[in-house]
């Protein structure tokens, strides 16, 4: 299925995917100082894994890998296994015996940059949807 509607659906999946990226960046920023999570350990930075998924279901073109409209979906949200930051703060309730507190492995400036990228990608897809919409409108004007 290679219709303008399929293109529209592909852009719509991209909006969902980049919305997820923004969400993850926002949770990383929000939890940059969270020293304990549900399991008692500090929050770990999360990352979104995006995967391309052909639109239009099980068609011959899809099976051949020749579908022209390829959407995107969030394949996984993974936790960054890099070491936690530490800060000397003996009065903190989560400090270890040497007085160091483990803080999430989140670098706030980096997250802000990631979020800007995700927001720009979202906007780019909005622009694409606008163009597809204009094209569909123009095609409908053929009947006038």
């Amino acid at each position: 299925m290679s219709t303008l509607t399929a293109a529209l659906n592909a852009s719509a999946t991209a909006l969902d995917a980049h919305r997820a990226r923004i969400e993850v960046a926002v949770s990383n920023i929000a939890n940059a100082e969270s020293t304990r999570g549900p399991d008692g350990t500090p929050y770990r930075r999360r990352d979104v894994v995006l995967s391309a998924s052909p639109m239009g279901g099980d068609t011959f073109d899809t099976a051949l890998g020749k579908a022209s409209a390829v959407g995107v979906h969030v394949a996984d949200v993974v936790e960054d296994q890099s070491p936690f930051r530490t800060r000397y703060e003996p009065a903190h309730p989560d400090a270890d015996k040497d007085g160091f507190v483990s803080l999430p492995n989140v670098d706030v400036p980096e997250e802000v940059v990631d979020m800007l990228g995700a927001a720009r990608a979202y906007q780019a897809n909005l622009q694409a949807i606008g163009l597809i919409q204009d094209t569909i409108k123009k095609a409908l004007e053929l009947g006038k």
Partner: protein
Amino acid sequence: MTMPIGSIATGTPSIADARPSPSAGAAGKSSGPFGEKLTALLDSVDESAGQANSAVGNMMDGTGDVHQAMIALQKAENSLQLTVQVRNKLVQAYQDVMRMTI
């Protein structure tokens, strides 16, 4: 407010049945009468309007996103516009035939 659009088709039986007689005899062909096509088109408008409705509802109660609601609305508008264009052509053709002098 949410009147099923499909009911319009039943209001125009004379247009829907105004098909060339040879195709009426050709039963079993994949292309059914035009009236059925029109009804199917109206049903699809109905369906996309329903989807748009639920997408907007989801957005309002926080389970859906703004873009999902807007895209559903745009799709509904597209299929409605397509139906309106098909209907315009249909009425125009009907009037052209009616104006024909014999």
